């Protein structure tokens, strides 16, 4: 058994914490996991990515091209930046949110021609050429609903936990969340997890197999 999850996002979105939580749950339950983490520089707003590999049959910290079963994009544009890693017809969990890099805004302001931002429907139409198993997650909305806007990463973990191919029990993930996040945010993170999980059941499980 092996499962490859590629996680892309923007510095400051909590990719590292998300990785820790899953890894910690694996360590506790005897599941092999290897990750290759690319933090970028220690600033916010840069591109950040994690290659996550779960199962007995994985060796390299990097996912071979075309072998990711799942792509998580905590920021919409970032899903395309690493698309070659995703299997054809792989599963994409994509944040509705786009964080436009300053260079994109500067081009619009400085150009005499009318340029538009790269938009979510452009991302989706391109993704559709690779796979049709796409779930758009309004993670910021769900995070706000949980009471903490910084729980977008936990919302995605909740989504992930609903998938049948993801081998870690939600109770174990919740235990890891409780251990890893600051004490006063535990409750909000657990709520964000549940909201994410429910969202997956509502919007993704019609297309791909989910846990019962």
């Amino acid at each position, binding site marked *: 058994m092996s499962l490859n999850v590629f996680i892309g996002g*923007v510095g400051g979105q909590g990719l590292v914490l998300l*990785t*820790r939580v899953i*890894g*910690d749950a*694996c*360590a506790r339950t*005897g599941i*092999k*996991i*290897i*990750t*290759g*983490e*690319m*933090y*970028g*520089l*220690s*600033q*916010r*707003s*840069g*591109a950040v990515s994690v290659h996550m590999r779960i199962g007995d*049959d*994985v*060796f*390299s*910290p*990097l*996912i*071979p*091209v*075309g072998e990711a079963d799942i792509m998580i994009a905590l920021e919409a*544009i*970032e899903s*395309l*930046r690493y*698309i*070659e890693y995703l299997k054809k017809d792989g599963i994409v969990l994509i944040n509705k949110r786009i*964080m*436009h*890099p*300053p*260079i*994109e*805004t*500067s*081009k*619009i*302001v*400085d150009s005499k021609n009318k340029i538009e*931002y*790269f938009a979510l429907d452009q991302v989706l139409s*391109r*993704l559709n050429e690779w796979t049709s198993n796409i779930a758009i997650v309004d993670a*910021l909305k769900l995070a706000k609903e949980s009471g903490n*806007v910084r729980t977008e990463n936990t919302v995605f973990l909740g989504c992930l936990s609903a998938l049948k191919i993801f081998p870690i029990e939600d109770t174990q993930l919740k235990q890891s969340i409780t*251990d*890893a996040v600051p004490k006063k945010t535990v409750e909000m993170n657990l709520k964000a997890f549940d909201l994410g999980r429910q969202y997956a059941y509502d919007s993704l499980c019609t297309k791909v197999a989910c846990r019962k």
Partner: protein
Amino acid sequence: MVLKDVLTKEARPAFMLGNEAIVRGALEADVKLVAFYPGAPISEVLDTFSAALNEFDYQMEITSNEKVALEVCAGGAFSGVRSLTAMKSVGTNVASDMLFVLGYTGVRGGLVIVMADDPHAHSSQSEEDGRFFAPNSYIPMLEPASPQEAKEMTKRAFEISEKHRVPVIIRTVTRVNHQSGIVQLKDFVRQDFKKVDWKDLQEKYTTLGEIARQRKLQMLKRTQKLSEEFENSEFNFITKADSSIGIITSSVSYLHVLEALKILGLQNKVNILKLGTTFPLPKNLIQNFIKNLKKLVVVEELSPYLEKEVYILAKATNSNLKIFGKLSGTFSEAWEYTPDIVTTGIALVTDHKVPNYRALIAEAKKLKADLPDRYPTFCAGCPHRATFVALNKALKIQVSKGQNHYFANDIGCYSMWIYPPISRSDSSLCMGGGVGLANGLSHVLNERVVAIIGDSTFFHAGIPALVNAVHNGNKFTVFVLDNSVTAMTGQQFNPSTEFIAGGRKGKKVLIEDICKAIGIPFVEVVDSYDVKNNVEVFRRALAFDGLSVIVSRRECALYGDRVKRKHRIPIVPFYVDKSMCKRPYVCLRSFYCPAYELDKDRQPHISLELCDGCSVCSKLCPLNSIKRAGVKT
């Protein structure tokens, strides 16, 4: 970081970053003195030791540079105390003066030097191959592939160091430092830290002339002994197969090889020699491995370091051996390896079909057309952005007066000025290099030379170049961007911070005091956020007929946020009052804050989640349309 896994005395599996595993290994080995200058990809070694400092009994320093860190640890090891430092290999360049003499003198106690290379230059100025430090300094080297191995090697390195009275290098690459995996923790007992008496330990650590010549002979003998010992090291192992094809590999490339063999259906069908002791090499082991092979693939990143050694050994044992590596053109010396690169290479040598990577990558490339780049950029609230806005204005005024400029950047967050949309730097090279370069440029250029350096870099390697400028009467302008911490590597403390390792109280060293003490005639300190007033101060510094220094001071926004959270000081964001905004875009042009976005009708607005409340954009707006959220006017 899950600190509890590093701290626990329990023997159990834990999910750990390579860097955390190194710390855990050192703690299990009862390390007593550690010292570091931060740098990707080893910064988390420093961070983890700093976070654990109040739990265990060891001494720790965050030093002003890597050479000092090595010297601190050498002091410990001369006295028989187990010591560890970690540095990126470009930091080893700085420390190498000490490294080479330590090869000669050796040490009494365990001295472990973790040296991290960064193939692909993910966060470095070059793809330096630090392995060559080992043979050049006659210092033994171990190379782990995984976090588990990093922990085991760190422990063993102390024993090797003590047995052979020599420092030991643990050479990693980014994909080992920043690889996480399951690590088996061992329980451990730590002794209390005790000072020792030099009179009990006393021996000579000198090397010069005749002493150096004698030590060289001893050093060669030591290397011979190590080579013999490494023939039986647990870190070198062979996976045998019924095949005339073999692979020699080390470091993370070993893991890519295993992946490649799985992909090609060649698991257990090819012989593998995984080398963990890469200096001195176990020559007999290698010769025995290759003697009956027909084809050998050498899989290593960067230079053909192992490959060239194998060529020499094959000449004696198996001159018909076909060797595939970089010299054969199978692999490149450029950039890091990936499973697909290694799979492709091994497929070609073993006459297997190469998976369709090229087609997938080409197809993906089409989907990425016109995708906005996401270059590293200054965070919302970064004081450097404010300094550069004022500096740009000051430079423009000077240009209008006929003064042109050369812009010498340095290594730190401010390096990002080389990236679009700003892209303004004539050079950006190495730690402190900008100020050193300014000395030379000021002799030969008609333009005014402007050097930019950060607080940490100033203390690291900037001061000697500045003293040189004063002494020789060189005329240029230096901007020291003092944000109180070593921001780019994760906001570690440095001499410009009032804290030291473990968050303990330290003495803040004032940059302006040093500048004044060495006799710089123009030294002014400003608040980076005070953009309006800073333009004129900066302009005067540029126009000054002599050496001028500006210290632009304001703490790193990320560090500041942490301090604010700790003291429960709220971050109050700003918003654009659309009724007053006539869209001159002054807030955006040359400022480029990531908290800004445009609405569909090109109206700028500020993302409340991202705004750091620094207020700088509100000071730039000619229409006063940017206001603090919640504050009525």
